[in-house]
């Protein structure tokens, strides 16, 4: 692979790297025929992000001769190349990315003003393709809005907040669909809710009124990029438990963030259903999949899977056990697995089990309260 980025696109690339660094620790780089794909996944595999820069994004782009080349590296080291966004804008004129597979080096060369060259040689690891399985076309609900609206919305929530819920109601006759965000936290925390009218969105297609909950941190990562690019953000989602896809497109750029959502109930059978329904190709144990189990909503597909071998999902128990042993045996896996587990539990069980009924009740109740309040008000005014 050999490609050259010039002018303002260097900053776009840099912003993309920064945005990815908010999500995962490793950057998966794959030069494809249709452009350069930069991907990452978070440690608990509940969030996946992909930036696809089309060949036209580059001044010059040639993918690899061998079509299967893929690699990954620490996102931090790539971030270091593009550390200061402001100085980047002022000084860097071009950026060349070259891959030397013999030497196992990826080279970022920044051509700065006054003929200054900054060269970063990074080592990488070969890896499988990272690809989340999602189908945004089938999503019942689509919201599209200017990034400013999303940023303003997220601003109301404290930075420590982990999860956020989005609930939508079908547009009724008066055309006032509501978009509610709410903190799904235990009872002692402050609950914040924001209602947006459907009119504020560029697109507001709701065919299945629902309420989904997902992690805010990753969304903030995307919004950071969206805000600087000024591109409208689309949200594709379905029922709780199905992933939400945040998407940004431009002629030379496509960004997809796929985030897991909390499933409505954590009943095992339900998960299984979700799983089989959701994953046409649920991958069996390969090192990539070891900590990816049950309900999780994002299936990572590896290209190295034998097509025949992935017919049906292995039983849940086996998968769980597989993870347990791999944790015990491989140190590296354990290191990665531990925090992931914790997060996973807090994400899907910790806050799910005790509060699932409570949370749903809360919405109902709070909505009732809202309604009765406006009634009261009228009484008060009259």
């Amino acid at each position, binding site marked *: 692979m050999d490609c050259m980025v010039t002018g303002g696109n260097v900053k776009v690339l840099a912003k993309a790297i920064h945005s990815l660094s908010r999500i995962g620790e490793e950057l998966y780089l794959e030069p494809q025929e249709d452009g350069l794909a930069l991907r990452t996944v978070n440690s608990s595999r509940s969030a996946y992000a992909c930036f696809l820069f089309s060949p036209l994004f580059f001044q010059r782009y040639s993918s690899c001769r061998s079509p299967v080349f893929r690699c990954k590296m620490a996102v931090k080291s790539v971030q270091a190349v593009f550390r200061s966004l402001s100085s980047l804008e002022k000084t860097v004129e071009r950026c060349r990315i070259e891959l030397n597979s013999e030497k196992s080096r990826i080279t970022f060369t920044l051509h700065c003003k006054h003929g200054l060259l900054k060269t970063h040689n990074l080592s990488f690891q070969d890896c499988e393709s990272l690809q989340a399985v999602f189908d945004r076309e089938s999503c019942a609900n689509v919201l599209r809005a200017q990034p400013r609206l999303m940023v303003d919305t997220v601003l109301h929530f404290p930075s420590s907040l982990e999860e956020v819920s989005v609930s939508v109601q079908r547009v009724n006759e008066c055309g006032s669909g509501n978009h509610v965000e709410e903190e799904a936290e235990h009872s002692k925390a402050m609950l914040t809710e924001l209602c947006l009218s459907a009119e504020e969105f560029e697109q507001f297609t709701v065919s299945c009124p629902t309420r989904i909950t997902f992690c805010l941190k990753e969304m903030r990562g995307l919004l950071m990029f969206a805000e600087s690019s000024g591109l409208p953000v689309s949200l594709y989602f379905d029922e709780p438990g199905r992933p939400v896809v945040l998407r940004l497109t431009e002629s030379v750029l496509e960004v997809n963030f796929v985030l897991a959502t909390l499933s409505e109930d954590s009943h095992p059978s339900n998960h299984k259903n979700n799983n089989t329904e959701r994953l046409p190709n649920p991958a069996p144990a390969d090192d990539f999949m070891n900590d990816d189990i049950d309900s999780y909503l994002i299936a990572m597909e590896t290209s190295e899977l034998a097509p025949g071998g992935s017919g049906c999902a292995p039983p849940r128990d086996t998968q769980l056990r597989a993870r347990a042993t791999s944790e015990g045996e491989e140190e590296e896996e354990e290191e990665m697995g531990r925090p992931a587990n914790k997060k996973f539990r807090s994400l899907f069980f910790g806050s799910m089990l005790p509060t699932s009924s409570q949370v749903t009740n*809360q919405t109902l109740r709070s909505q009732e309260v809202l309604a009765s309040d406006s009634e009261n008000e009228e009484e008060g005014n009259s």
Partner: protein
Amino acid sequence: MKFRAKMVDVGCLNHFTRVVNTISKLTKTCTLRLTADNLFFMLSDKVANGGVSMWCELSQANFFDEFQLEGVTAEANEIYLELQPENMSRALRTAQNAKSLKVKLTKKHCPCLTLAAELPSLSSASRLVTHDIPVDVIPRRLWQDFKEPSVPDFDVSIYLPPIKTMKNVVDRMKNLSNHLVLEANLKGEMNLKIETDLVSVSTHFKDLGNPSWDDDGSQGPSQDRDPEAMAHARVDIKKLQQFLAGQQVNPSKGMCNIVNKRMLHFILLHEDVSLQYFIPAVA
């Protein structure tokens, strides 16, 4: 028990936000007492327990355009709530350019003080942001714990220099020592002192003036006190710093009453808001 209030003026909203921010800097939890005319933020740590206490009084009419309150009974027409001022401060922060702000007591998953702000939006319809701040309703039998503190039987009362100046001095001193001695006399002189094995630092203020307390009947300093004699109290420097650092309501008048070797009593007045703060002396 019902409470509902509405604020529309941006100036009032900002002012109220500053008061709440100040409170939230001073304490993690506090008691909010609502009466037909006033709001009180109270911190009930007893001086005897070694803690600080705080008493902040606002007149509701200066902030709210509507204010409806229905207490427990007609004769006890008050509501006492325990809440975390930080939550309230956070909620108000997101309501800064609100067209209106409603505050009401609601029963959700738990009793809540709900702040609902109507925000401008891109369309004709407003954005509505609501924050449900969980509160504990304090039962009537415990109300007696929250009496307004009486002005203590102090030895010296003195006007404070500008809070900012004091803060700058105390911030520096905090790096050197954990305790600070504040002393003042009836000639308008006040000193801030620290003393450690390595260093002694003192900052002198003069011509500050001494408020006269005679007309409101509380016991002021005895007439025969030597005007030059200093009354002093040694306090935890962190508590003093916290008090000075949290000030966002630029007070028009600030004073300090010193009960020799017992405690410091600060009073800040800003138009309609008064804030009292008690810091116990340590040995």
